[in-house]
């Protein structure tokens, strides 16, 4: 615990900023119904009302309270991104480590499949898959998880491979240990920190990706509040010089920047030196 506090103390201002933002957003997501003055899909006024006491950030194209939707959006957008990243991570890292430990044919087959997924640009792949399975929350999570399994697999495999060549893995193999022990007890603890940092980075990508899909009208479907589609729905306001529609996009940017700052600091620490 003392170590942990010591580490926190040594964090640069950028990392502090990042952690503060992440903590705030987490609180907002958890207590969304308590914070938001109105319901998520409740129509409370005329469309495009300006900022006022009643509607902190005005109303949107259907007359719903922008601020409330922004608050609920935290929950929806971030929650969805976390879920998709977690699924991609679970599958990708386990497969990656298994491929590295087993090697041979298993490794080759898995790697080829992943190569092919990686050879198709991800946004195009997502768009095509979504055409096929139709746009819904479940299908989007499935598509994103499928796409992001690939880079996670590659990273997990590469870092596991640098561990697998170590003599202590050979010693464990020669002792007669099974696959489960090798993956969980010998390899995983050594690449955990890399994977955690990667989780942060991938979360950013997934998050931006979902936002882009929603923005294109193919992600989270109305009337659910979501930062990407909120921008799309209210983009007209921008041509009148109003910045309100940019707020959800700014929230997206703020969160990804924060996560990036924290991850960057963690990577620096684990690499030991300044560069």
């Amino acid at each position: 615990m003392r170590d942990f506090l010591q580490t926190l103390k040594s964090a640069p201002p950028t990392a502090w900023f990042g952690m503060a933002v992440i903590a705030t957003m987490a609180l907002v997501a958890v207590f969304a119904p308590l914070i938001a003055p109105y319901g998520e899909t409740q129509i409370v006024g005329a469309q495009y009302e300006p900022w006022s006491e009643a509607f902190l950030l005005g109303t949107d194209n259907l007359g719903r309270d922008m601020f409330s939707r922004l608050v609920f959006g935290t929950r929806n957008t971030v929650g969805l991104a976390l879920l998709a990243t977690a699924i991609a991570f679970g599958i990708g890292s386990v497969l990656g480590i298994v491929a590295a430990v087993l090697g041979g044919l298993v490794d080759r087959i898995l790697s080829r499949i992943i190569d092919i997924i990686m050879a198709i640009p991800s946004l195009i792949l997502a768009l095509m898959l979504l055409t096929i399975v139709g746009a819904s929350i479940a299908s989007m999570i499935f598509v994103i998880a499928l796409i992001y399994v690939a880079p996670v697999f590659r990273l997990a495999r590469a870092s596991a491979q640098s561990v697998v060549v170590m003599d202590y893995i050979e010693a464990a193999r020669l002792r007669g240990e099974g696959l489960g022990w090798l993956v969980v007890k010998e390899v995983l603890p050594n690449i955990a920190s890399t994977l955690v940092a990667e989780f942060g980075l991938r979360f950013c990508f997934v998050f931006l990706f979902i936002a882009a899909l929603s923005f294109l009208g193919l992600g989270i479907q109305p009337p659910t509040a979501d930062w990407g589609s909120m921008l799309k729905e209210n983009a007209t306001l921008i041509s009148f010089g109003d910045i309100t529609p940019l707020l959800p996009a700014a929230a997206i940017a703020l969160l990804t920047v924060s996560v990036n700052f924290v991850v960057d600091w963690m990577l620096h620490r684990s690499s030991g030196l300044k560069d």
Partner: protein
Amino acid sequence: MDGGQKTNSLLLTIRDLSIEGRSSNGWTRLVDSIDLDLHRGEVLGLIGESGAGKSTLGLASMGYTRDGCRIVSGSIRFDGLDLVGCGERVRQDLRGKRIAYVAQSAAASFNPAYRLIQQHCEVPVVKGVMTSAEAQADAIELYTKMRLPTPNEIGFRYPHQVSGGQLQRTMTAMAMACRPDLIIFDEPTTALDVTTQVEVLAAIRNIVEQFGTAAIYISHDLAVVAQMADRIMVLKNGRLVEVAETRTMLAAPREDYTKSLWAVRTLAREAEAPSDAGATPVVSLCGVDAAYGSAKVLHDVSFDIHSGRTVAVVGESGSGKSTVARVISGLLQPTRGEVRFEGRALAPGYLARGRDDLRHVQMIYQMPDTALNPRQTIRDIIGRPVEFYLGLKGRAKEERIHALLDQIELDPKTYIDRRPTELSGGQKQRIGIARALAAEPKFIICDEVTSALDQLVAAGILKLLARVQKEFDLALMFITHDLATVKAVADEVVVMQQGRVVEQGPVGTVFSAPANDYTKRLLESVPEMDPEWLDRQIGARRSA
């Protein structure tokens, strides 16, 4: 070497030099108030173990400190010039022209994008010492002097097309390009095999004498330094231990630390009665061939190892000695022949072997850093085989771990909860031994177990192994390239060259009267603690 010719003017004087390097917790001293004098034409040996600050001091004599290092105090004067106070431009002009550097790994230090001769000519041409044509002609002449084969052509190759020993000679030639006053040799032969090392040492010494160049020769091997240097400085943790003329130091070292630098050489195996020819050997290899893909690496290898005995397998890189270990442990399946354990054939692959077969054949590895999982505690590392093979749990397991730690002379209370990163190299190697012993094996493979360790620590490990061998009547196989280690631990020796066993027998017999030419050459190539040794070698080769 001839003291009479030496002009007595000082070339390099270092006074009270301290250098610090940045580490995770602030600045650490790498070099600590060192004084050094070097005369023109003199060769000074710098010797010490890893972390002694030899390279840092060597580079400092060029006025160079690596990134993240700084000179805290002291002065470096080269031929009247103050290398600390003068500008970078002055130092830059000096380097390459008047002070040159030969790096440990020539393979990594030559730029892969250019031909060797282009890199050779760069400094004399850029610094305006010679024209391009002159530099090229001179390069070929220097290659001839360095006794490189085909000196007219070798410079037109790329670094990755030339062997390690030849690269090291090319790099020495490059350092000579501007006929510098001083050359820093930073462990130039450490990465080479012994038989190659002799040739490179002879070539370096020859050219340094011919041009009367002063040199600082850095090495961790006292026997090598003794061949090259007029005077030797011993360093430890950045501090000076002692400095003396080479002969004086070898004959009568003042400090105990200096003596410990050849600790392994002082060990000797007690002679034992030859093994009973009728007894079944613990492990025997019978006509083993093995290959990596289509490349055949072992040809018809056969030898036996009896209980309580140590067999050393020696050879240079590429001799197949490590492959022998992989075949015995089942990591590599032989293409022909078999491995027998107590007379019964073992399954060729480790996956097909029973738990008891796996238990009886244990390994100890070369690099203690990679042999132990850094994320496990000592309790986990030693406890796992105890539980896995012997089924001990809870209290019984804990007691067994304590007993094993006592066995390897580490205090259980202090060490049981530590992780490998909190241990020194020698301690880690002891944990490796404990992990092997935990399986209660009959046979242990020791793969270069002391080559990553400093001499005194290595001697301790060898003594420990000898003790546990006696206690448990173990059969040991030592894979090593170091003949001093063979003398220290082995009863029998198997000499390998290019995947074949060229000679085997009791250590005493093979070493005193080698029957095979390669064995003879290998034995002769090991530097001795005698400054005349290299001269004798060169003499013997010329007359041969």
